[in-house]
């Protein structure tokens, strides 16, 4: 099951440049939350702070409190332990090109020392079913490489790979921006179904997508969280004029 994410006074820097300013928000469990805002507003930095990927960039650092369920991720918790509980899918599908479809999905578990082959096969199948890819690849699991799939299939493979380690939270950083409308539709449908078992945070430039898949939406601008509310409120009657200007296309 997914868990809630509580962010309190989160700041983030790239060297001396502050990218996030005092972000506080409660992301509810088992819902999809969209993060929107113009380029450079800190959306991706924000989600990368939720699984401690931000600090992997040289000179980058973050301060503040982030609780994933009962796990205080910036207070003595190992980054690896954090990332095991929080899966991430990126803008560009990035399957391991030399690995088969099967090995792509099993990679995370194998890396964690999981070697029960029967159980592994069950998890791979379950993950591919969850990511709505199973029917398309079940006959060529070990014959085809991940790179041989179409862009939309590759992205669903990456989602299956993220789900295989049974995370509680799935972070998606513009997961459909490189996909055609049909593949986008499949991923959106997937997000809708995955919400039952995972908490999803999705960064998107596509506001129609945010309104279609997310129950909650946060609007970021210049590294600050301007407004966070139920999605229908943000897209019909936002409280802040800056939110309205952005979503009605008057800037950004």
């Amino acid at each position, binding site marked *: 099951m997914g868990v809630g994410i509580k962010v309190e006074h989160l700041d983030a820097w790239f060297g001396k440049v502050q990218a996030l300013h005092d972000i506080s928000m409660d992301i509810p469990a088992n819902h999809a939350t969209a993060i929107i805002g113009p380029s450079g507003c800190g959306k991706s930095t924000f989600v990368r702070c939720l699984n401690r990927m931000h600090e992997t960039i040289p000179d980058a650092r973050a301060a503040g409190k982030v609780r994933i369920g009962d796990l205080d991720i910036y207070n003595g918790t190992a980054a690896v332990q954090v990332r095991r509980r929080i899966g991430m899918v990126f803008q560009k599908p990035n399957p391991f090109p030399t690995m088969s479809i099967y090995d792509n999905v099993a990679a995370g578990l194998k890396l964690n020392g999981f070697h029960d082959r029967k159980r592994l096969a069950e998890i791979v199948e379950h993950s591919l079913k969850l990511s709505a890819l199973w029917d398309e690849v079940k006959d060529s699991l070990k014959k085809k490489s991940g790179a041989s799939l179409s862009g939309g299939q590759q992205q669903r493979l990456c989602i299956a790979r993220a789900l295989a380690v049974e995370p509680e939270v799935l972070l998606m950083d513009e997961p459909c921006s490189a996909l055609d409308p049909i593949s986008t539709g499949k991923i959106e449908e997937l997000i809708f179904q995955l919400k039952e078992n995972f908490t999803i945070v999705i960064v998107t430039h596509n*506001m*129609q997508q945010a309104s279609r898949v997310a129950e909650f939406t946060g609007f970021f601008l210049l590294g600050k969280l301007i407004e966070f509310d139920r999605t229908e*409120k943000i897209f*019909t009657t*936002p409280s802040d004029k800056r939110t309205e200007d952005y979503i009605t296309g*008057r800037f950004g």
Partner: protein
Amino acid sequence: MRTRFQQGLDQLRTRLLRMGGMAEQAVDRACQAYIDRDLNRCHMVLEGESKINEAEREIDELAFDLLAMQQPMAVDLRFILAVTKINSDLERVGDQAVNIAERVMDLVELPKADLPVDIARMAAAASAMVRRSLESFIEGKAELAQAVLEMDNVVDRMRDDAFINLVKTMNERPQVTRQALDSLLVARNLERVADHATNIAEDVIFWVRGADVRHNAPQENPSQEVTPRVPGI
């Protein structure tokens, strides 16, 4: 800035105001026709109806295109939804004007009767409501629209008074029953015009404030008033 979208919104607004002008003129003409027993004005109202109907179709088409092609959000989405509803109300205002004109055409055939009903005063009140609701749309001001809502009770009372007095007249002077009935229907048509003006005002409040005030709906988290940004406002 989405220039084409903004032009579309501007065009929608201009067309709706033009239609509002036509509907308002139709009611004024029909009421003047009643007062003057003027068949010529009645024909003008009947002939004008097709233009109002045509305008309604064009506005709906443009609004539909903008919804489909531009995926508007927030204040723009509320504006387009409000326009489509106001459009429908204005077309109905035009229909009421036609109904009044048809009653007048019947009345002109009958001997003139002195009736205890002040249609001129009621027409002035209903017309003022339509005019002010359209002004609130032009200005994008919810407080102007709110004032229209408060006028509706006045016209309702006039209709109630007309009903009581004209029914009494029909009982006392059966020879003018047909004239009294026509006048009663005109009073009812004017009350409907006022209802449509009320609807328009409610739609303006929805557009500007994002608040649904229809049927005295309770307000849950009404958003702060935002400045509508359609060109010319």
